[in-house]
């Protein structure tokens, strides 16, 4: 079929959510109301999850909330230069931005976030091993975009 022969028409699919965080609701409540970051700890094996889980995936028991101090270590960092035109992250970061996997002190898992630094020279200020600390945005709505990280130069 010649490309002029096919017939196209339009449609739209739009869904709004007002969703619940269920058993990890406290994580986002503490961020929004108290500017605090928490993990969850298994009382049996001691593993600390951040991002939090209300159940330990190893022991199959309920976890307990533990406060974290918001400092951590970069395990991996990607300097991102291209995003699609309508990417929602552009509300929070400019290009290029640094996406980092961060292991918070006291936690045994990694949290994905952004690290914001002045000097964006590739792999200079932010790379594997860099120490960072959490910062909370002024406007918080209960999402991972409510916080970001900066260099911990203390």
């Amino acid at each position, binding site marked *: 079929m010649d490309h002029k022969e096919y017939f196209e028409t339009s449609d739209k699919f739009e869904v709004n959510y007002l969703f619940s965080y269920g058993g990890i609701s406290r994580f986002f409540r503490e961020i929004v109301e108290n500017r605090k970051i928490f993990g969850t700890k298994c009382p049996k094996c001691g593993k600390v999850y951040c991002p939090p889980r209300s159940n330990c995936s190893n022991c199959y028991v309920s976890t307990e909330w533990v406060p974290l101090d918001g400092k951590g270590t970069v395990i991996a960092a*990607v300097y991102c230069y291209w995003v699609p035109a309508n990417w929602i992250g552009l509300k929070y970061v400019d290009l290029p931005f640094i996406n980092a996997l961060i292991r918070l002190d006291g936690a045994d898992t990694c949290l994905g976030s952004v690290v914001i630094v002045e000097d964006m020279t590739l792999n200079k200020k932010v790379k594997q091993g860099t120490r960072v600390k959490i910062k909370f945005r002024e406007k918080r709505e209960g999402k991972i975009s409510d916080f970001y990280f900066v260099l911990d130069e203390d």
Partner: protein
Amino acid sequence: MGMRKVAIVGVGQLPFRTRYPEKMYTELAFDAVKAALEDAGLTHKDIDSAVYSVYCDALMRQSTSDLIIHDYLGLNGKPGVRVADGAASSAYATRVGYNEVASGMSEIVLVVGVQKSQDVIDLQTMHRGDAIFQAESQTADVIWENPFTIYPWGLVLSAHIAKYHTPTEEQIAKVAIKNHHNAMDNPNAQLHMELSLEGVLNSRIIGWPTTMYESCLYGESAAAVILASEERGKEITEKPIWITGIGSCHHNSTTEMNLENAGRLWAVYGAATQAYKMAGISNSIHELDLVELNDLTAGIEIISYEELGLCPLGKGGRLVDEGTVEKTGQLPVNPSGGRIANGHIAGVSGVHSVGEVALHLREEAGKRQVKIRSGRGMVSTLGGGYAGLSAAVILER
């Protein structure tokens, strides 16, 4: 294991194209299935059961599309099931189909993957590519990866480079050049374009170190294979290709990453290990004639060499420098051009690759044919948020 042998008796591949506006997904699936049936000398009435690989409903503008395809293929009344596992979907589907035959539940099983991706559009830019990202955005973990972890495999690659100091930018570029060069001989490839080292390194950077020409394509296609029991397989064809190993592994690659074991594609490792064990392979680089894997980016291909045990961890770059993985080398990887030059679409790439390796083992791969020595080939797939989905298939003649 007490399971029956399973043969691939029919292969149907459509070219990867940016868009097939003249075909709906039912029509693409039909074309691939018809080709596979003709290859096998069968009709749709011979099919006992079908496994559908269709990935993203938002792209397809249809949920439960497998029922609609099943009806369109004239298979009403027969069992059907759908598998959706990111970019690895159709290799997972192959595993499901394999089990139906191996267990004795079915004699002849159709595995078909189909995906439209270009029916979406971003009304601000009038670009379809921008809308594809959005439609697929729920592939990643919507709470913990979205929006910032836009390249989960980029995190794995970056961590790998930090730990092992390879692959280098040049080695990654060489993989892109290799795959684009291989695709020149592949009539199914979406892109026929030779590249230079400079051209690759200077193309637009996506997420360091990956540049545009080192990233996979995305488009539309369909592919199908027909699986049969040993008895039926030998009746149907003189060249049955046996599935002797199959593995699948869900493994979140990023959440548990630590400095000691950073930069691993655990899912790829897990699926390959299972497949090797089943096939009795202990030294893959000497026991395989070709590998078709998911080079979602050229750098990921190099890490995959390590996860597939073709070389020790951290030594993947060397295979590139020494030409081992070139089409003329000891173990060609992605002689089709791979995801970055042959084409890629979640839902289809896996079963396309299974058919591709089968064609090579039959020595029916035309200009892109590799030398067959051991009579074994491998498919490795990777996909999903957390770079966490993989299925692998080992084929033998």
